[in-house]
């Protein structure tokens, strides 16, 4: 398993995911930097993501939508707070209308991603999700409802069958 550790703090309303990937940091960074790669993992298989705008510069915006089984679209936005390629990305993640404009009535999560290449060539990724409030957490967890029942876990087998780059 590539998820090494998950630390949940119900009081501080944070969750930290630590994962390791058998690839150099530059390669792992691309799953964030390249919108075509990002859209292949951000949404669950039943709600694939499409990146409309993807500007990873300080103050830059990302606009994406996820398409559900019935063709329903759910839009989201990021605002890049800071970026230090290929090591660090901090952004706000929120809900949007279908033009990508942030919905001010729905909560924003702060995401802090750090990548760290280990001596053995394995890249460790920390993702800290920070909720502004418990209401925010509720909303974001509502999104996770769909995820919880996806076939995502079934993808592990496919993962193990794939060969790693030379």
């Amino acid at each position, binding site marked *: 398993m*590539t*998820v090494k550790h*998950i630390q*949940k703090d*119900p*009081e501080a*309303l944070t*969750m930290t*995911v630590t*994962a390791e*990937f*058998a*690839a150099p940091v530059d*390669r*792992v960074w*691309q*799953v964030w930097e390249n919108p*075509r*790669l990002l859209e*292949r*993992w*951000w949404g*669950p298989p039943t709600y694939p993501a499409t990146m409309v705008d993807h500007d990873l510069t300080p103050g830059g915006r990302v606009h994406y939508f*996820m398409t*559900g089984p019935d063709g*329903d679209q*759910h*839009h*989201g936005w990021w605002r890049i707070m800071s970026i230090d390629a290929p090591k660090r990305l901090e952004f706000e993640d929120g*809900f949007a209308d279908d033009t990508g404009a942030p919905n001010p009535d*729905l909560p924003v999560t702060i995401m802090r991603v750090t990548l760290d290449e280990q001596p053995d060539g394995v890249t460790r*990724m920390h*993702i800290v*999700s920070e909720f502004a409030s*418990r*209401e925010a*957490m*509720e*909303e*974001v*967890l*509502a*999104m*996770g*409802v*769909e*995820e*919880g*029942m996806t076939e*995502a*876990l079934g*993808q*592990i087998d*496919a*993962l193990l069958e*794939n*060969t*790693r*780059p*030379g």
Partner: protein
Amino acid sequence: MMRALVHELPTRARRAVHRCGPADCVEGSRPLTYNQMVVDLIDAQETDRLFSALADATRRDIVVQAMRGEHSVSNLARRYPMSITAVQKHVSVLERARLVTKERRGREQIVRINIDAIHHASHLLDELEDLWRGRVDRISELIADSSEGEFR
């Protein structure tokens, strides 16, 4: 984002699953049905009380103490630099959040943990954990795929 879907659930379905309180949901927490998870999330008021209650250091400590065994309110009050009345108030907040129960025994009020509520709090974070486990799996798959031409 999926909020809209949650709200579109038929009323009947919601009512049916609403019988599943935190205790019941914890009982069968893996695997969960979609409806059970929804009810956890739409029961916002209860969850709001839960996290409000846990937002205070004294109350978190009372919860920790209660997890170790039952305590009287006066016994708890000795631990904190505050009046018994103040501790009573904290216990009441925890009681409303269903984190603890309080029972009168003679002249004492005995505080006990409600372990189901604790499970409920961690269960909500489990949902988020599932989201990220799925994402990490998908990243791994992408990275491991040698035929991936989109990498530089």
